């Protein structure tokens, strides 16, 4: 980049930042939305009043100011930071502009209509595009690698602060927009906008090298970091997300996160595509449903939960080994079809109540809630004078289960077995030539992955109280697989993040239910196009996807295209 270009792009960036800020202060809608406040602020003032800064407009203002600062102050990684900010401005203004347009019945809603003018959305959008365009020019600078060191205890304190901020962010993301549904039609839009803003903010942090530095920090204080992270996860009920509703959502996410970690062993580590994986969650759930004293169960046993969980895991694991056994002969796409068939067999058998163990279309209702020392997990709880919402104990339990699954995954990955799995994924023949018994190793991947899902299934049965075959359809397998791929194959945070996003979205986007799968599919395609390595890529895979290397075929979009519902 020569000097003139540099000046030009700086001017462009400044202009973009200024336009974004201007757009933020302009009115956004020429009319008052009928269905109540958006987003949670007074309607009329919010859209007409130029200074109604809350919600997404506050995010935009922050991005605009940040863009202005980083346009003028040269910092390492400047280009990438601005790119993330620009993308954030564009996404947030498009999302909200679009929503106001659709709800207001036309482009008049965000431009001119009956004497009223409201150019907030277009102006902010142009600002964002300018920032993006100016930073897309020339070569992107590298993400700087900071080497700051502080005394150990300061570093730990810093880490603690970061993790607490993370907790606040998680709580904010979870509750943003409020509970979706008929009562609150803005939940989805507000949530998406917040998610986009949070994503862009994270992107900017990553571009600045700060998140890598924090990652290095947590690596230096690994034990401490993990402990604090666990505490933060357990502290979620004490934030704004501590209501029964959000605790239920969080517990459901936990179930899918644990299952996603199991699937990540099969798909992410061993590279075996499994399209019927949700069946193992189902098997675990049905086993638990039959062994926990539900009246509808034909077996009628009532075993203690820890034992039930072990039995569920073992039964699911055995089925996993059975499903995995064709891997001895079948590879790649063909294996995917075998697993697809297995998933279908499971759903159909459960639907038709084969063996009388699944209740068929009646499902198995009335699974008793878990209890500890006579205290039901679904009841209110008072700890030292602090009242905690019902369902918090379920949340705590699933956090521990997910933590256990993470430990299993991490330990296996860094072991002889984990290396053998990765070697099989990379080149099966070469792995065999190095003495890896590929057959048993692959079956072991299926077995262990299925056990984790079975464990999660046992929890799921008690949490939802009713286990029906409908929860374990093909689309659930696909969503779980998408969670793993979206988050980043072969990484723990990836699986958890992917599961969180994919299972929070339906909860939040209820009012878009007609378009939910469509949006979902588009989002996945975009992510696969622009970030094929996933949101939290494996350090290994990052190298693998370096330019010039052949990228593996992604089967997911094709699979999604076939999902009609």
């Amino acid at each position, binding site marked *: 980049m020569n000097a003139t270009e540099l000046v030009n792009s700086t001017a462009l960036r400044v202009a973009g930042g200024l336009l974004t800020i201007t757009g933020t202060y302009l009115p956004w809608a020429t009319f008052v939305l009928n269905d109540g406040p958006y987003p949670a602020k007074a309607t009329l003032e919010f859209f007409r009043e130029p200074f109604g800064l809350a919600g997404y407009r506050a995010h935009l203002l922050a991005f605009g100011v940040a863009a202005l600062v980083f346009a003028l102050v040269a910092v390492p990684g400047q280009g990438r930071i601005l790119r993330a900010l620009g993308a954030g401005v564009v996404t947030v203004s498009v999302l909200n502009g679009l929503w106001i347009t659709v709800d207001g019945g036309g482009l008049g809603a965000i431009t001119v209509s009956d004497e009223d003018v409201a150019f907030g959305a277009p102006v902010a959008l142009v600002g964002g595009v300018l920032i993006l365009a100016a930073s897309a020019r020339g070569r992107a600078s590298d993400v700087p690698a900071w080497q700051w060191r502080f005394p150990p205890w300061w570093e730990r304190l810093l880490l603690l602060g970061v993790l607490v901020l993370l907790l606040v962010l998680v709580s904010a993301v979870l509750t943003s927009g409020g509970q979706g549904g008929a009562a609150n039609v803005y939940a989805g839009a507000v949530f998406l906008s917040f998610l986009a803003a949070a994503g862009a903010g994270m992107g900017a942090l990553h571009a600045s090298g700060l998140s890598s530095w924090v990652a290095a920090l947590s690596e230096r204080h690994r034990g401490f970091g993990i402990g604090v992270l666990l505490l933060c996860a357990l502290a979620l009920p004490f934030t704004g997300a501590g209501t029964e509703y959000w605790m239920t959502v969080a517990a459901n996410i936990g179930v899918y996160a644990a299952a996603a970690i199991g699937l990540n062993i099969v798909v992410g580590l061993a590279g075996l595509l499994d399209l019927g994986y949700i069946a193992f969650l189902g098997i675990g759930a049905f086993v638990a449903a039959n062994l926990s004293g539900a009246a509808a169960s034909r077996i009628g046993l009532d075993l203690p939960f820890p034992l039930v969980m072990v039995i569920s895991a073992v039964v699911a694991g055995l089925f996993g080994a059975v499903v995995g056994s064709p891997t001895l002969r079948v590879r790649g796409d063909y294996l995917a079809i075998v697993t697809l068939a297995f998933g279908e067999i499971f759903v159909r058998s459960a639907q038709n109540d084969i063996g009388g163990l699944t209740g068929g279309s009646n499902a198995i209702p009335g699974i008793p809630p878990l209890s500890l020392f006579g205290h039901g997990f679904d009841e209110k709880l008072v700890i030292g004078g602090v009242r905690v919402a019902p369902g918090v104990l379920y949340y705590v339990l699933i956090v521990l289960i997910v933590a256990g699954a993470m430990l*299993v995954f991490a330990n296996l990955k860094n072991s*002889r077995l984990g290396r053998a799995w990765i*070697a099989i994924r990379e080149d099966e023949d070469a792995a065999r030539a*190095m003495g890896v018994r590929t057959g048993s190793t692959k079956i072991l991947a299926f077995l262990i992955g299925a056990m984790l899902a079975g464990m999660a299934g046992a929890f799921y049965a008690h949490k939802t109280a009713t286990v029906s075959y409908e929860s374990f359809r093909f689309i659930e397998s696909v969503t779980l697989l998408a969670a793993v791929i979206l988050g980043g194959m072969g990484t723990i945070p990836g699986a958890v993040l992917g599961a969180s996003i994919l299972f929070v979205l339906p909860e939040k986007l209820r009012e878009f239910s007609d378009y939910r799968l469509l949006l979902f599919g588009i989002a996945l395609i975009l992510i696969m196009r622009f970030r094929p390595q996933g949101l939290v890529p494996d350090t*290994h895979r990052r190298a693998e996807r370096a330019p010039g290397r052949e990228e593996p075929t992604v089967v997911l979009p094709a699979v999604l295209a076939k999902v009609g519902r």
Partner: protein
Amino acid sequence: MPDQPTVDFGRPLVGEPVLHAAAVSMRFGGLTALKDVSFTLADREIIGLIGPNGAGKTTLFNCLTGLYTPTSGSVAMRGIPLPPDPARVTERGVARTFQNIRLFPSMTAEENVLVGRHVRMRQGALSSLLHGPAFRRSEAEAARRAGELLAFVGLTRSSGEPAGNLAYGDQRRLEIARALATDPEVLLLDEPTAGMNAQETAATRQLISAVRALGISVVVIEHDTKFIFGTCDRVVVLVRGEVLVEGTPERVRGDPRVVEAYLGAPPGGAGGGWHG
């Protein structure tokens, strides 16, 4: 043995016989890729396997390592037949590299070598899960060994690099280190210098001699004549799936049939570029 080689070895075997292929034939449908190939590899010997393209050299390697099951004939290691399973062949002490480099590209150089160590480690699923003291000892031992091997092939500095990012010549050497990690008695090298420049070829030559000095016997498929005649104790010439000539480099070099098979012309330029 029914089909003992009838060729006169120019000099005695370096040591005890290690690997013996007896009348190995491999047919794919109507195509005969190998026909009654027999040879014996002795302790600490380096055999060069040469022949025009399509002569069956790599097929022979695949038969020796259990990747293919020979249509007839057998392969034995120290008198005991090898099973038709690459993993168990490796366990028995036969390691190989591939003509087209087949590393695990996204794993680091060290991890690649550790995969090679797999067969000499005994930690199962439960131990991998629990990370107990025995597990940690075994991992530390494997890591130490991997470090030694990377130093041996001169890749210490790249140990944390993903294998796919290494330079071409480094990848070839890493493949050798990975094969050595299996503690082989016999190492089969499939064109270890393909695509290398003269300097790298010379370094690889030294490396192979060093491998022999570790007490490992080597069979090497190679096109580079300087390499073959400078390094190998014996040369086996494979043409159209059959052993044409076997003997010392000098013998083979002077054999008119070899020259003809390669050049289709009378001798004169032998020793020069009879590259395929």
